């Protein structure tokens, strides 16, 4: 039951201009969650990233951003839509 409510809440949040951010590895440890919805105060990816940086004080951690499963080489001039998937990624350690 609780889970269902959560989904409904997410839908409502989307309507209210929220955007979903995913966190992984060491970053998820800092944010203390693997995913959260934040208010989309701007459509600029750059603004959204600045907001995440300042919310969690991430500037000392080397990290990368992915938009819809693609690494973003430069965050300048990119617009974000409600259904886009933004991910904050610490250094890769596969292999």
């Amino acid at each position, binding site marked *: 039951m609780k889970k269902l409510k959560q989904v409904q809440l997410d839908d409502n949040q989307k309507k209210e201009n929220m955007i979903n951010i*995913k966190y*992984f*590895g*060491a970053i998820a440890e800092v944010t203390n969650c693997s995913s959260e919805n934040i208010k989309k105060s701007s459509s600029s990816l750059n603004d959204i990233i600045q907001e995440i940086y300042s919310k969690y004080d991430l500037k000392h951690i080397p990290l990368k951003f*992915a938009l819809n*499963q*693609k690494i973003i080489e430069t965050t300048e001039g990119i617009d974000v839509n409600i259904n886009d*998937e933004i*991910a904050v*990624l*610490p*250094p*890769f*350690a*596969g*292999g």
Partner: protein
Amino acid sequence: MMKKKKNIFIEGAISPEFIAESIAKHQTKMNIGAHNIFLGQVRADEVEGKKVSAIEYTCYKAMAEEKLSEIRERAFEKYDLTCMHIYHSLGNIKAGEICFFVFVSSKRRKQVYVATEDIVNMVKTDVPIFGKEIFEDQDYQWKENTF
């Protein structure tokens, strides 16, 4: 047409038996003359007097699968390969266990070594897999690939 997603991530360590089965499956392919296999094994590294006892792997699955299918395509374009397979563990992999398995097959041996090396490096740099090195005292540190 939707591309068939390959099962790349394995929960837990990659067993020698799994590797043997993969090899056996290629024995019906009569045009293969050379296989090359890379295996990544978890090392019990010492960091400031503490020993790594395991690595806990997680990944960003949607992106990882996307990237791995790009790596497959690039490898088949660059090298004359008959088959290639990539497997990576998720979850807790103990020191001494295998967490990464790259399997390249070709008619002739010439390109299999460099193809394997290239694929291993692409996986290490491009695929969002994260690793937590867990020490014997349950303390940990986040692993970072070096090149």
